[in-house]
Structure formats: C-alpha cells, structure tokens
C-alpha cells in the first residue's frame, strides 16, 4: 500500500491548541480546552472519554458543525491542506463530505426520514460532482455492495425506518464514503447497535480503512470497540487530551490515572460473581468553571498539592506516548502491582494482537 509511505510525512489532520466555547447559556461553557491532535494518512485514532469530555465536540469542530452564532472556535484545524477555520461558507460546504465526512451515532436520526437512502446518497454525490443521476445511482449501488448490504438494488429504495439498525449504519457509512473523502469522522458509530452488530461494523470500518487508505477519527466511550480499530488512543478528560499513544502502549502501560481508572471500570472480562464493579468516584468538573489545576485532581487517588496549582504539561514517555500528569510514576507503579496480582489486564489485549 502506498499510503503507508506517505503516512510518515505531513499528517492529514492537524489540530493545534483547539478551544471551543459555547455561549448559549448563562455562562460560557469551555467544552474543549487546548486539544492538539495529529492523524496521519491511513491511520485510525480513537478519541476516548466519558460524556462531556469534549470528544464529540472536538470531532464536530473538524467539520465546523457547531451553530456558528453561539460557538467560539479558537486554534488551528488543518485537514488535507485546508485551513478549516478560515473557510468561507461556500468553501466550507464544498469541503464537508468531500474531504472529510462523518458517521453519526444513530443513523435513524441522522438520515432524513422522508427520502430513501439511495436518494440521499445520490444527492450527496451530485452535490460534489457533476455527474448524471443514473451514474450517481450506479455509484450508490457500488457503495452498498462495498459495505456489504444484501440485495443492494432493493435497499437503495428503502427508507431509513425500513432498515435494521446494523443495515442503517452500513448505509450511513456508504453515504459518508460517497464522495471518496480522505478523512472519516466516526461519532460513536457502534454505540446504538447491539453487540454482535457492533463487531461487524467495526470490522467493516477497519477493512474499508485499509482498502481506501482512509484516516479515521473514531470517537467512543467504549474501550473495547476502540481497541478493535484504533492504531492510536487519545484519552480525553474535561476538554483536554490527558493521555495519548499507540493503542498497545496505552492499554499495557497507562500512565494517566484517569486512563487506568477507565480501564478498571470496564464491566466485561474479569468480573467475578459478587465482585463490585470498579467506578470512578465523583463527577467530571463543571465546564463553565474549570479548576486552575489538573481537572482530574479531585477524583484522583494519587493527587498531590502540586496537582492543584497548575495544569500539568504533557510528559513524553517515548514512542509517541505522552500523558498530562505529574504522577505518571505512581500510575506506572499501580499498573505493575495490579499486573502482578492478577493477569486481568491482559484480557484487554486479546484483540490487539
């Protein structure tokens, strides 16, 4: 694959010091507070975090989908050489769907209910390319075959509500790929699906990514799903990326206490009958008034006075692995301890191999 050779050169997605503030309510809400993110061609990066961590806001900023009047976006977003924040409205519409496109969490809500799926794909293709309706429909058919929808000819004429959940998500993926984008943004694409279908969709995404050399930014709160597809993990908390690195590395040696806590809070795998499910005490901070220090400090087991003074800078741990924490050593120790006590963490790795 020639995409691999280019992967080392300039990243296709480059986000620098992204800050997103919503001004709709009484107080401005800082949903994203200085995110740096690079995605190489053909690479899949998973943005992981709980609700309100800013992962979806970051993703939607890449297409500038937030309501313009109530949102302030600062920083720099570059996708395939386009300065996204500087685009005019027409150029922005041309960019959306053609350079980068998006898969939504719930395709039933994200597709127009009164148009057939085929019509919506044809509309998308003809929006970006001068091509006849018949040709566009042929392309739509090919896309349906590509995402492996059975009897595609018939399904093109189906309305979204006439399809099953998994089928709809496949149609959504076909729609997103209609104009051969270079970057695919996936906003929790498997959350609304049941477990068996989730795996199928993840495998499909991974396969398409390899075939088409797509760069994928994959937002999820499900670590198991992220492990399936991602080359790299970026864990978000309170609008910042707190830990980032190659998937195996982050799973094996988490260095941020939040990442560790997230992994311990997973339900599947090592649950013994009667054992309590580990949870993270407390709640995420109020995004309308963030603490001056580390945002995770008040829920952190390794907290020190220094943590409350200022926001920790990223600590380089080698191999592209970095964490914004003063106590990476304490986390590393805890990981080593628990690895000695049980072999449970290895369960997380069964799929990465």
């Amino acid at each position, binding site marked *: 694959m020639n995409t691999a050779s280019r992967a080392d050169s300039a990243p296709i997605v480059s986000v620098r010091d992204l800050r997103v503030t919503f001004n709709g309510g009484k107080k401005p809400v800082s949903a994203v507070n200085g995110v740096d993110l690079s995605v190489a061609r053909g690479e899949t990066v998973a943005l992981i975090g709980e609700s309100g961590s800013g992962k979806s806001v970051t993703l939607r900023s890449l*297409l500038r*989908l937030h309501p313009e009047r109530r949102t302030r976006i600062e920083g720099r977003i570059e996708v395939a050489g386009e300065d996204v924040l500087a685009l005019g*409205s*027409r150029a922005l*519409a*041309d*960019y*959306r*769907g*053609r350079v980068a*496109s*998006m898969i*939504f969490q*719930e395709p039933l*809500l*994200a*597709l*127009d*209910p*009164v*148009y057939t799926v085929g019509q919506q794909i044809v*509309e*998308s293709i003809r*929006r*970006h390319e001068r091509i006849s309706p018949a040709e566009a429909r042929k392309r739509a058919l090919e896309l349906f075959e590509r995402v492996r929808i059975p009897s595609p000819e018939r399904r093109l004429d189906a*309305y979204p*509500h*006439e399809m099953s959940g998994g089928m709809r998500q496949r149609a959504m993926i076909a*729609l*997103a790929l*209609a*104009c051969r984008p270079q970057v695919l943004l996936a906003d929790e694409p498997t959350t609304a699906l049941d477990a068996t279908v989730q795996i199928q969709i993840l495998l499909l995404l991974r396969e398409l990514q390899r075939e088409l050399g797509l760069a994928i930014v994959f937002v999820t709160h499900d670590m198991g799903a992220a492990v399936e597809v991602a080359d790299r993990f970026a864990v978000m908390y309170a609008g910042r990326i707190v830990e980032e690195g190659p998937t195996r590395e982050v799973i094996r040696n988490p260095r941020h206490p939040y990442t560790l806590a997230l992994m311990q809070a997973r339900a599947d795998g090592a649950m013994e009958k009667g054992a309590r499910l580990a949870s993270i005490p407390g709640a995420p901070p109020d995004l309308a008034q963030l603490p001056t220090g580390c945002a995770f400090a008040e829920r952190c087991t390794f907290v020190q006075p220094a943590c409350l003074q200022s926001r920790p800078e990223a600590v380089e741990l080698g191999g592209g692995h970095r964490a914004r924490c003063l106590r990476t050593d304490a986390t590393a120790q805890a990981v080593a301890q628990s690895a000695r006590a049980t072999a449970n963490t290895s369960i997380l790795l069964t799929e990465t191999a």
Partner: protein
Amino acid sequence: MIFYLLRRIVYTIPIMIGVAFFCFLLVHISPGDPLVSILPPDASIELQKQLMKLYGFDRPWFEQFATWFWRALHGDLGTSIASGRPVAAEVMRAVGNTLMLACMATLIGFLFGGLFGFVAGYFRDSWVDRIASALSVLGVSVPHYWLGMVLVIIFSSWLMWLPATGAGPGGSGEWAWDWAHIQFMLLPAITMSVIPMGIIARTVRALVADILAQEFVVGLRAKGLTDLGIFMHVVKNAAPTALAVMGLQLGYLLGGSILVETVFSWPGTGLLLNSAIFQRDLPLLQGTILVLATFFVVLNLLVDVLQTTLDPRIQRS
C-alpha cells in the same frame, strides 16, 4: 395502495350514516314549526294538517328519517319549503360558489401562512419571528365578520376599488373567471383567509423549528449541503403536516362561512344555511348540512391519502 384506499373509503360509510342521523335529529329536536313560513297566519287547522301530511311531518321521526335517508341516497334531498325548488339543486349551486370561495381563501391563507411560518421558524426568536407570530395571533383572534365589514368600509366605501357585496356584476348570476367577477371574490376571500393563515403560520413555524433542531439537519450539513439544499429537505418534511392542516381548514371554511357569506351576500352554502334557519326550512337545512358533512369527510379522506403518499413512515396497512 389501492387496498388502503378502498379500506379508507369503506370506513367512511358508517361515519356518513352517523352524520346523517345526527344532523336529522338535531334539526328535529329544535323547537319551532317548519310550516310557519308558508302558511298564512290565519290558516285553518285542516289546511295545517293537510300540509303536515303532505310533507310527512305527521309521521314518527324515525320513519321520517328512514324515508329521508333512503331518498338522499338516491340524490333526492326533498323540496325546499320556502322556495318549492328541489333542495339538491339549490345546495349544489351554493356548494359551487362556496367551494370556489373556500379554495381561494385557503390558497391565500396557505401561501401567506406558509411564508410567515417558514420565515418565523427559520429566524426563530428574531424580530422577524416576533412580527410574523404577532400577525398570526391577530389573524386567529380577530372576528372575521368584523374584519369583513372593516374591509368593505376601506376598499368599497372609501377607496371604491372593489365591490362590497354579491357574486358578479349581474348580482348572483353565472360565474366567469374574469376580472369583472373575480373582483367580487377578493374581499370575502381575504376575510376568510385570515384564520387559516394564522393557524397555518403557527403550525409551519413550530414544524420548521422542530425539523431544524433534528439531528438529520446536522447530517445534511455534514455532507456539504448548502442552505438552499437544506431548505428543500425542510419543506418536504414539513409538507405532510402542513397539508393536513390546510385540508382541515378548507373543511372548516366550507361549512363555517355563514357569517362572512352573509356580510358579503355571497350566494354560497353559508348564506343558504342562514336563510334556511331563519325560514325554518327543514328539508333545505338538513340537505345543506348533509352535503357539507359529506364534503368534510371526503376532504379528510383526501388529506389522509395525500399524507400517506408524502410521508413513507405512515403505515399503509
């Protein structure tokens, strides 16, 4: 689709029988003597009895109903007591006039109401929205017979642009689609359009605001559609409900224009009902109500069918 259509038509049969029964009953339990308008005040008891027998008012009410309904099924609605002409012919002529007026009024109401509603929904909470909303509330609240009189004063008495009453230069003669006739229709049509305009504007505003808040609009934006492209999607999503409301409004206008038709002396069903009530012309009253009710039911059927074809989510089974 044909099966669905057939079933819907069959469903209307019991509705129609019920409607006929109730309109017959309502007219009959109301007090007053139907023959008072044609009998001279000094008529003898014998003459009164003779006429009662002639019109069948002496028989029990259910027998009267059965006879009346059976004839109605064959298109015979009896004879008007006041004019002596067949009710069916009288009603059909009036229905034509009313239908024309109601269609014109609904069209005006739908065009302007839809426009106001769309603008208000798109620019929600802006000054445009406030003006459009205020206009629509005004439209629903203003008594339309009063508005009719005000319009007559302004456009007929002061400006002398439009005629005040009637349905054509020759009084209420043959209708033609030329300016000489259409100018008679403008004032009553505008007067009648005000209520549907307000209702449709409010419905469309709520619809548009609701549609714009849905996730699929973000989806449309994400695939690169411009505002115009998104507008087309909003229209198609709003159309089924907006059309349903329009259909119902047309139904109301067909039956509920008594006051406006009386103000403008428009020779439609409203004016006919008005005179039938005042002259206690029972056959005419029953016949008019039955025909209007039929229109309402048929219109509802049409709206339902249209909605089904526009919105694929409405089940046809």
